[in-house]
């Protein structure tokens, strides 16, 4: 085949970009409505990062009683979520999620997902950080794995089209409407066009812009970058969650479930330091609080050399560890050579989740007609300034389904897209790829990536301050310039992973700037965004969402009000 000569255009009613929990849940609903939906994913769906989710999925099933015989409710779930968000979440969206959560969990059960069970046979629930009840439904510490495999089985059963290992390269628009995308088929190097009456972005987070991240290596934020370039907005990108307990060395996640089951954090002096920072919730305070506390212990010299503390599970006993946390134990043994039954696990905070994402309303509609977003790549916003553990999994399936429902309604009246813009888009992507492959000399682009991840972790990490962030932004701008000069050795079209990783890096540098601009402009501390120069929350000036747009080759910041509701902003005490 000659390079890029053949033009292939695939047509479906709905295109779903991303094959994780959100994408697959949406695909099932769209298929059940009798529509032809297709999943386009840069990896096989089962390799999506959802598969790594450990701890669980929040839903007020009330299978266990709370303190003093109280019963959980969607309202308690909503309250905890809003408080956890430091009041930045939109309360109407939170309400919608918390009301739908129990149904979403039961739906998965009905699809055949295997959940851990209580003695009475009901779905097991465990306590998680920032939650007033044991609300987190789990499948040992492999909840994401069990859920993703179950959804994929149904996708296979319904014979839904899946384009595996297709890296989406641009969104196609016509008359201000998103009508599809182009994608590079990684194995052949060919650029394909995809047309649909609606496009759902479900591509997950962008953790890999940081150098210490729990995220899969594929989490490069492609969806957010595509949406921003095509005219959608990004929201609250400065709110990046740092998980308190990632394995020292590789930053593989050690689930909050470990503390939910009774694990405690100890500094180098053997002190249970969380008693000082969160006297009531102690080790189960929300993630932003615990991550900051660990970081402070380390900064003040009470961590171990290299910068970590201990997560001690030994008092739980071998039986409980083996039954409830088998995956964690395996990870600790495989990747740190530590058996948690015998020794404490070395942990440090690491990037874990992107609260921000593609700006979308309660139905997942973005500012670009025809484009929808759900799951971690989106910001509707249910997590506000800090996400509670167990809320991301529930968000994926609840909004995967609800946003699909809106799409099903909307496509009835949507126009059938034309081939012409798709052909032009394919040509433009082909030209761009050829241009990249033609380049000679210059630095290795992997060096630029290493510089970016270091800058983001050092200057936009757990503690932030104006001058360092300004320096960081300047560095990122410089790197964006730099990568237009770097070249690849591999000049082939087929199976060119260097090309894919280069395109991912372009996206990541783009998003890094959005994070930086949002963070610099937000002169307060809220949730995960901690400014040492503005240590207090400032509701008068910043109880609002940050929006980042891209126009005339420039990013601009604006704001949007938060939808409040039942829960008035209060000081957050744990």
């Amino acid at each position, binding site marked *: 085949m000659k390079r890029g000569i053949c033009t292939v255009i695939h047509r479906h009613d709905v295109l779903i970009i991303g094959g994780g929990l959100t994408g697959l849940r949406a695909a099932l609903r769209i298929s059940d409505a009798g529509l032809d939906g297709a999943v386009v994913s840069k990896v096989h769906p089962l390799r999506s990062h959802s598969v790594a989710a450990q701890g669980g999925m929040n839903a007020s099933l009330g299978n266990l009683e709370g303190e003093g015989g109280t019963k959980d409710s969607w309202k308690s779930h909503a309250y905890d979520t809003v408080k956890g968000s430091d009041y930045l979440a939109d309360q109407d969206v939170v309400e919608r999620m918390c009301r739908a959560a129990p149904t979403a969990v039961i739906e998965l059960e009905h699809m055949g997902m295997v959940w851990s069970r209580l003695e009475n046979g009901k779905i097991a629930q465990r306590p998680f950080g920032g939650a007033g009840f044991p609300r987190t439904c789990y499948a040992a510490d492999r909840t994401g794995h069990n859920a993703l495999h179950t959804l994929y089985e149904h996708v296979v059963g319904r014979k839904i089209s899946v384009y595996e290992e297709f890296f989406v390269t641009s969104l196609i628009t016509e008359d201000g409407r998103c009508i599809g995308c182009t994608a590079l088929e990684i194995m052949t190097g060919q650029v394909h066009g995809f047309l649909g009456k609606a496009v759902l972005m479900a591509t997950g987070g962008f953790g890999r812009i940081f150098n210490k991240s729990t995220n899969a290596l594929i989490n490069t934020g492609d969806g957010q970058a595509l949406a921003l370039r095509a005219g959608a907005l990004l929201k609250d990108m400065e709110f990046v969650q740092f998980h308190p307990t990632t394995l020292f060395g590789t930053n593989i996640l050690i689930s909050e479930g470990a503390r939910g089951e009774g694990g405690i954090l100890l500094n180098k002096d053997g002190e249970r330091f969380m008693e000082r920072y969160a006297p009531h919730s102690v080790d189960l305070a929300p993630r932003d609080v615990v991550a900051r506390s660990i970081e402070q212990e380390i900064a003040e010299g009470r961590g171990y050399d290299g910068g970590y503390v201990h997560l001690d599970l030994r008092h739980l006993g071998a039986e409980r560890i083996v039954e409830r946390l088998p995956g964690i134990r395996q990870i600790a043994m495989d990747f740190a050579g530590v058996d948690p039954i015998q020794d404490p696990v070395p942990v440090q905070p690491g990037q874990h989740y992107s609260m921000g994402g593609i700006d979308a309303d309660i139905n997942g509609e973005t500012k670009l007609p025809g484009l929808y977003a759900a799951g971690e790549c989106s910001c509707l916003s249910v997590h506000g300034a800090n996400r509670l553990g167990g809320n991301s999994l529930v968000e994926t399936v609840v909004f995967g389904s609800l946003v699909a429902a809106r799409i099903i309604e909307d496509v009835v009246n949507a126009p059938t897209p034309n081939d012409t813009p798709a052909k032009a888009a394919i040509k433009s992507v082909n030209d761009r790829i050829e241009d990249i492959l033609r380049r000679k000399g210059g630095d290795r682009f*992997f060096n630029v990536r290493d510089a970016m991840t270091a800058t983001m972790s050092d200057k936009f990490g757990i503690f932030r301050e104006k001058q360092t962030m300004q320096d960081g932004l300047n560095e990122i701008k410089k790197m964006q310039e730099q990568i237009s000069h770097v070249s690849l050795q591999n000049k082939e079209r087929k199976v060119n992973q260097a090309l894919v990783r280069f395109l991912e890096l372009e996206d990541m540098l783009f998003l890094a700037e959005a994070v930086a601009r949002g963070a610099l402009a937000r002169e307060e501390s809220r949730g995960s965004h901690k400014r040492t120069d503005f240590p207090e929350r400032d509701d008068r000036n910043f109880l609002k969402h940050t929006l980042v747009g891209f126009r005339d080759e420039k990013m601009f910041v604006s704001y949007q009000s938060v939808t409040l509701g039942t829960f008035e902003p209060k000081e957050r005490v744990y």
Partner: protein
Amino acid sequence: MASPRYDTFEPEPRPGMTVLEALFQFQERLDDSLAFHYSCRGAVCGTCAMLINKVPRLACRTQVETLLKGGLKVSIVPYPAIEETVPWNPQEEVLVEPLPHLPVIRDLIVDMDMFFQHYRLIEPVFKPLTDNAERERTMEPAAVKKLEVYTNCILCAACSGACPVQGKDPRYLGPAALAKLYRFHIDPREGGTSRLKTADIPTGWRACEFFENCSRVCPKGVPPRIAIAKAVAQLKKEKKRGQLNSN
């Protein structure tokens, strides 16, 4: 397909370095055309199974230093795909080759199509006995424990790459698909007709020769061999009963 080529790289050592990390070093510093599959780097997504020192394993979970020190020994029954291809010194080198029994696309990337065709063939979709959707069905914790043994499969295909029968006959459904089928068979929430019949074909349960390589290389401790043995025994019993009834 061009004949295979072997290159030798020397990684910059780091304590705890995995084979996957070493591959990234090569790709990023020496040869950016080196091709291999990756995703989670934490042994949960099942993407990076390859033949490492003649044993199918996940590259992300296999530490270079441990291999060089003679650790991570897995004893498997020899089969053609793991015969010597190139001499190497296991004290100083790690030999990394594509997962056997699947067509090589490039370098360490194999085409998983056949593997997933078998997966589809066993109809891996839950078929519940009852389905009035409002409530969760209850389940004994003990039943969950039995199921988990099989639902833990990450479909990495290491078992398939280690299976001598798979090497002889690519049409064999293979350990992963059969274990998946067994998982549905023992799910107490399922009902209706026996799932076992789906693989009661010459390339199904009966093709297994019980080498047990599958269970030995599984990174998640899934025992397809046990599933297959139980299925074969049950089918035999059912057939006997059927003959008795018809007599």
